[in-house]
């Protein structure tokens, strides 16, 4: 993998907040002051349980939502405020998304080739029909689907095949960053590995960076260079995969790590997962500030907590 940490970060998220007002008196604070960086060619894994705000972060970055506050810089341009036409055009080509649900993420009434080619059509990035066809064929081959699949409809495919179509759609315009929003969690374990292998291969070939959002730590470990652990809208701990897995600091990270299923019955039978309950843990995420552990490993906590944990 050609992650390049000497270059400028490709994506820089600083103090991102995303609130959703539900009523006049109640606001859901889905994302709370989250900062991280993604470098060109690397894979950054965002992990957290459902409701932790991980998908919201992805959608705020790609501007399906308008961020409440914070600054997002992508490839040298600010994309968190009002978007100019040229910024928007560039953003819609250079940043792509792979979605969670292989059933819902493909338009059931469109042929595979039109789903994959939609980005090309919108941005008129081909000279003639033949070039379009060629591009679609090439990307289909890349994701391991047969040429004949181009004229079929999504419901004729299995979950794993559809997810590959989703990947093809995201990759056909050679984006610099792909946000993979829980793109494997709806698949069977055997197919998950297939999709992850495919994503890795493509990254090696094209140098695309991934923001890999998931709740399954074992796959995240396998694909990511760096990881961020998210809980209740707060980024609790971030660092390289090595740092997080060999030296977890935050009790929440520890509990997550202890729950990863392992295909080893003797180990599984004797294992007891570590409990973690935010309400009774006595930790207040709002009070926490970033503390450097070492290298690129940061934990969000108060000074006292930091002392107690390390």
């Amino acid at each position, binding site marked *: 993998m050609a992650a390049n940490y000497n270059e400028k970060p490709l994506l820089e998220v600083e103090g991102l907040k995303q609130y959703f007002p539900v009523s006049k008196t109640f606001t859901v604070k889905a994302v709370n002051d989250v900062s991280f960086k993604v470098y060109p060619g690397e894979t950054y894994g965002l992990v957290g349980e459902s409701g932790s705000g991980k998908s919201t972060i992805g*959608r705020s970055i*790609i501007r*399906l939502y308008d961020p409440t506050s914070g600054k997002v810089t992508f490839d040298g341009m600010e994309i968190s405020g009002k978007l100019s036409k040229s910024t*928007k*055009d560039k953003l*819609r*080509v250079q*940043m*792509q*998304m792979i*979605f*969670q*649900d292989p059933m*819902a*993420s*493909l*338009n*059931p*009434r*469109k042929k595979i080739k039109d789903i994959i080619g*939609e*980005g090309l059509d*919108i*941005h008129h990035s081909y000279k003639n029909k033949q070039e379009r066809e060629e591009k679609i064929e090439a990307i289909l*081959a890349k994701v*391991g*689907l*047969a040429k*004949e*699949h181009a004229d*079929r*409809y999504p*419901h*004729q*495919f*299995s979950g794993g*095949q559809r997810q*590959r179509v*989703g990947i093809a*759609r995201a990759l056909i315009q050679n984006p610099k960053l792909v946000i993979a929003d829980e793109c494997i969690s709806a698949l069977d374990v055997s197919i998950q590995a297939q999709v992850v292998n495919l994503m890795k291969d493509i990254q090696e070939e094209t140098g695309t960076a991934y923001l890999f959002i998931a709740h399954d730590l074992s796959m995240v470990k396998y694909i990511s260079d760096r990881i961020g652990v998210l809980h209740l809208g707060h980024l609790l701990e971030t660092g390289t995969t090595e740092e997080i897995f060999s030296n977890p600091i935050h009790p929440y990270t520890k509990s997550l790590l202890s729950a990863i299923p392992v295909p080893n019955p003797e180990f599984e039978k004797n294992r007891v997962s570590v409990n973690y309950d935010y309400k009774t843990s006595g930790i207040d995420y709002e009070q926490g500030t970033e503390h450097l552990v070492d290298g690129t490993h940061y934990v969000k906590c108060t000074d006292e907590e930091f002392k107690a944990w390390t």
Partner: protein
Amino acid sequence: MSNESAVLNQNEYIPTDADFVLKKNNADIEVDSNFASQSFWKEVIARFIRKRSAVFGLVFVLIITFFAFVGPGMNAYTYSGQNLEQKNLAPRIPIIEYTGLFDGHENINTTSGTKTVNYYFEKKLPDTFYWFGSDNFGRDIWTRTWSGAQVSLIIAVAAAIIDMIIGMSYGLISGYFGGKVDMVMQRILEIANGIPRLVIVTLLLLVFKPGMITIIIALMLTEWVGMSRIARAEMLKLKEQEFVLASRTLGAGSMHIIFSEILPNIIGPIITQVMFSIPTAIFTEAFLSFVGLGIPVPRCSLGSLISEGFNSFTTHPYQIIPPIIVMALLMLSFNLVADGLREALDPKLKEM
């Protein structure tokens, strides 16, 4: 647990040693060429055909439509041709008349009691046949019934299609943009929906002269509301779907998303709604004609025929029967077809 699942029989292949070598297929194994061969519309048709009442409805719709366009030309009479000499003749059909049915006789109630007469003989018209009888002005009821059905069908289908286009666009736009746009559009819709249909129609007829176009406009002005509600509800359901979000992240514009991403997905409920609104339109048109706000004479529609027949209902009941049967069948059949389509397009029951 029983061990041998394969029961040997004579035809079974007996493996040889040559079969026990590794296949050299490691290259093509990487390309996945699986797919299911079902097509969506094939399945819809299969489900539709399985529902007998829907097929029955479709057959009747086709038969009535066929006669509506061919029927008026099947004999020498025209819908407006009057022959006062031959008024109020009872139905008489060649060949069948020998069975005693449809031989042109009718029962007339007079002060001295009921008597059976056959005007065809009394007026010495041995070679004249009015299949459904003739009316007060000596016009052929067969021709008039089918040409009336034709007018009703044209009005209903035109109104339904225009409704679909207006209502659908309105609902889709309102639902997609949401927020303030939706608020304003929904209030307008509520006001439009609040005015009684009869008021609108009466006012319209004061301004325009009565006729097919006027009735179509009148129907259109009132019917699109239902269509737009359905389109809006479907839109609200679909617009947060991931394939729509995907289009947005690819940079698609609003109109592209509404009309080429979402619209094809709601075509099912829309078609169903159109099919349901056709019988409503037929009925509304008949109702307007019946109260005298419909098609001007000498043209006729099913409604105006029923209205005319109603006037002579006590003396010549056969005059009202054909248009009523045709209308009832038409409405019933359209409803059955719509019902079948709804189920075929939106299967709630999974097959496995």
